[in-house]
């Protein structure tokens, strides 16, 4: 964490942000469980403020395999990108978990993009909506987009030059208990949103006192 940003968010504000993400992802897991009808296991969320370069390096270290991501961009009081990421080799398994084992491989391949987009949509929306509702703000959320590539490419948001160099990087592992499926949810917050986020977290803390 860089010094200037560590000063910007207090310990309690960072705690509140982590708890907020925990709420969002727990809700998202409950929704995904309804889709796959098996228990979804979650890790404890990690929330760090890093440079974009560090976020990319972080993802690259965690996973150098080809990956699939469903991403949705959000804006409003807060701007950023939420991603559901898993190894490409597991994406068929995830689709199978959702649509059932009865379909042929051909049918499953045909459904892959749609099923992935829908899964991402349910998970990321549940997560973002919880965060927005708890902060009592509205976020506009884009349609889901499925992308294939390496972790380093997903975070290379050079296509949005308005984003600052620092990002809030939120990271949570999830897995399906009885199937060989693991993935993670990552969220990048545009740093210019930090001042707004700080005041929204402050208001949330005041409401909780």
């Amino acid at each position: 964490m860089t010094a200037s940003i560590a000063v910007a968010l207090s310990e309690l504000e960072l705690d509140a942000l982590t708890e907020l993400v925990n709420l969002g992802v727990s809700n998202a897991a409950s929704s995904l469980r309804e889709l796959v009808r098996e228990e979804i296991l979650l890790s404890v969320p990690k929330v760090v403020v890093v440079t974009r370069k560090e976020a990319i390096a972080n993802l690259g270290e965690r996973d150098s395999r080809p990956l699939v991501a469903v991403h949705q961009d959000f804006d409003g009081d807060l701007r950023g990108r939420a991603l559901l990421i898993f190894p490409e080799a597991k994406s068929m398994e995830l689709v199978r978990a959702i649509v059932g084992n009865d379909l042929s491989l051909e049918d499953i391949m045909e459904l892959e993009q749609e099923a992935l987009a829908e899964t991402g949509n349910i998970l990321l929306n549940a997560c973002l909506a919880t965060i927005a509702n708890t902060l009592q703000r509205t976020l506009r959320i884009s349609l889901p987009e499925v992308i294939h590539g390496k972790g380093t490419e997903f975070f290379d948001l050079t296509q949005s030059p308005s984003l600052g160099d620092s990002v809030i990087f939120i990271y949570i592992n999830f897995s399906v208990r009885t199937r060989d499926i693991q993935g993670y949810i990552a969220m990048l917050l545009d740093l210019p949103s930090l001042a707004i986020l700080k005041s929204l977290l402050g208001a949330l803390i005041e409401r909780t006192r």
Partner: protein
Amino acid sequence: MKCKVLIVDDSKLARMSVVKALNALHPDWPRLEAGSADEALECINRESPDIVLLDFNMPGKDGLAFAAELHQLNPHTNVAVISANRQVEVIDRARAAGAAFLPKPLTEQALGDFLDHALRQRRAAAS
């Protein structure tokens, strides 16, 4: 009858929100706080709380594993697991560990119902 309540959550904000609900329901009940299962265990050995409110998703030992341990240790402690993770498996495991399940964000109503139930049980056991 006053009950001693231990709140276990790694998030201070989450503990604050439980304290707020407790203040509205039973302002005179003594409460203790712990940020992890290990810290909670120390506190339990020292203070013997009547009621333990546990977060599920915590670093180290999670709330469900800890609830099961507490149930072995002292089956008469009233335990609730609090989580936004409402998967049936989570709820079932909480119940199997002898704990109630309360959804997060915690409402005064849900906490109040649980505390009333705990209070009735403790009164019946004391009489």
